């Protein structure tokens, strides 16, 4: 049957089509890495796009799986890269949302055992969620014999450059109690760095712990709905008037679809137009959820329309 029922057609748009789309949306959700910046390099035109959208009455949010910084550091990065008016309240990172989940949704009574970096620890601290103090140099104990904190009620795993066997063994012990929550900040198997390099992501550490504990983690980050629900709990969002813009089909676009948002792929990051087309042409039904409604070369393509 020619012409699918849904508009999820992987449609490359520019000019008037962009204008019509933006006119129909009140909220724009941006992924960060690969959309508005790549590492420490801003995507040309991105700061102007954000400013113009806000000037025209749109609400703008940033939804990132990157859990390596607390929100206040993100604000500094935005400033550094030329975004002049981004407020902390508009930034939703998987670190911030994991802390919010523990405090507001799980309402955890007790401590959290964290495998993570400063970004996550700071957000938990800011949210008032107690954390087990971890000594990165655990040379005083062996992997065969270590103390456990009896107040632990949840395990949270995310990107951790100090990940080691001891942390894996400890987390596995805590997870033997089925009442102990098991959360992961995000599922990304690797993270892109500038220059085409990659580094292992939270997803690879989570996979180790899932295998050890024979349990599945509740994943906070995209494509899970929770980050959207976190935004919606603080701001009034109508999914029909919201647009998700991202560069990773398996996280950003799937996230948008899971939350009932319109979705746009920008080609300044990880996924390619060809990959999107392959998902569109695939016979398998789950792959349809990786197909964006719209595609642009870069969000700078909005400038022409917004400056009119």
């Amino acid at each position, binding site marked *: 049957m020619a012409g699918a029922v849904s508009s999820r057609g992987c449609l490359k748009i520019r000019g008037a089509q962009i204008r019509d789309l933006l006119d129909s949306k009140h909220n724009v959700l941006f992924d960060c890495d690969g959309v508005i910046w790549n590492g420490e390099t801003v995507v040309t035109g991105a700061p102007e796009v954000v400013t113009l959208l806000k000037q025209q009455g749109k609400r703008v949010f940033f939804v990132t799986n990157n859990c390596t910084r607390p929100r206040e550091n993100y604000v500094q990065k935005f400033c550094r890269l030329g975004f002049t008016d981004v407020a902390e309240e508009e930034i939703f990172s998987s670190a911030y949302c994991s802390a919010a989940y523990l405090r507001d949704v799980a309402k955890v009574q007790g401590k959290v055992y964290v495998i993570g970096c400063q970004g996550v620890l700071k957000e938990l601290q800011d949210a008032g969620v107690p954390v087990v103090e971890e000594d990165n140099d655990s040379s005083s104990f062996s992997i065969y014999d270590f103390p456990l904190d009896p107040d632990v009620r949840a395990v949270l795993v995310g990107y951790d450059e100090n990940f080691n066997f001891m942390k894996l063994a400890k987390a596995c012990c805590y997870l033997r109690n089925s009442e102990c929550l098991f959360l992961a900040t995000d599922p990304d198997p690797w993270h892109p760095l500038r220059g085409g390099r990659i580094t292992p992501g939270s997803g690879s*550490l989570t996979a*180790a712990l899932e295998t050890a504990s024979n349990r599945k983690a509740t994943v906070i980050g995209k494509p899970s709905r929770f980050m959207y629900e976190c935004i919606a709990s603080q701001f009034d969002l109508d999914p029909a008037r919201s647009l998700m813009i991202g560069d990773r089909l398996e996280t950003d676009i799937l996230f948008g679809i899971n939350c009932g948002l319109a979705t746009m792929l920008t080609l300044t990051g990880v996924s390619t137009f060809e990959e999107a087309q392959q998902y569109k042409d695939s016979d398998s039904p789950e792959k349809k959820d990786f197909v964006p409604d719209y595609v642009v070369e870069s969000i700078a393509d909005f400038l022409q329309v917004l400056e009119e």
Partner: protein
Amino acid sequence: MAVSKCTRLSGPLIKQLLDSVDNVLFDCDGVIWRGDEAISGAPEVINLLKKTGKGVYFVTNNSTKTRKMYADKLAKLGFNATEEEVFGTAYCSAMYLKSVCKLEGKVYLIGSNAMRQELEKVEIEQIGVGPDHVSGTQFDWANVALDPEVKAVLVGFDEHFSYMKLNKALQYLSNSDCQFVGTNTDTRLPLEGGKAVPGTGCLVKAVETAAQRQAQVVGKPNRFMFDCVAGKFNVDPNRCLMVGDRLDTDILLGSNCGLKTLLTLTGVSTVADAETHQKSGCPVRQGMVPDYYVDSIAELLPALQG
């Protein structure tokens, strides 16, 4: 044709089974020992089997010991066994890299000193064993200097596993010509004293996830370990018995290689587990149903002594 399976081994059936085989393969943990204690009766069983002229071999997924270390442990616990009769994954991975991967070059090793020693014995040079922590920035370690002679990544049990090692493995494996081998996928490693820690399977999974690649796995239930034994000792699968405590590694290996299989209940799996596989319609799961089971291999003693 319905084949009767998962039968309790008792009475005359025991002698019948033993007479029908020339060689017996034993898993170690949970079968002949638990931690650093022999299972009561196990040394007598092994020693009598050898006395009656059977070949007896030990096949373990545990990569933390060399064959020599296993031979020392066996001797200490009263088993008459030699180094050549032990097949652990430290030794078998080295053989795998040499004979299957036909490796010419170095290995980036996430594993134990035992694995390093077994690699050295077959003249494969490794880098990476021991502690390795991150330093510098994210960008520094993503751009860490790679040794151009590394042609394979091998992952085994490593108590020094760290983010930096995971990162290095990822960088090497970004080259599709670099081979990727794991010793085994067991999720838990049994320790002396009856405890357990996360197993090699967790470390292999971490690397597989980051690299978005599947490892070639050497250990049970992959048939390579049987092929190692059979190649050395001329074992006829039709006249060979596999004795183990895990349905998804030991018994499945036996089934995959056409061996007779005996489950002992002194370790991980239960009869209920076996019956669940048996009742499922799934053909793959039938491979995890043992021919026979005993509470302990000590039950073989009367038939051997008689």
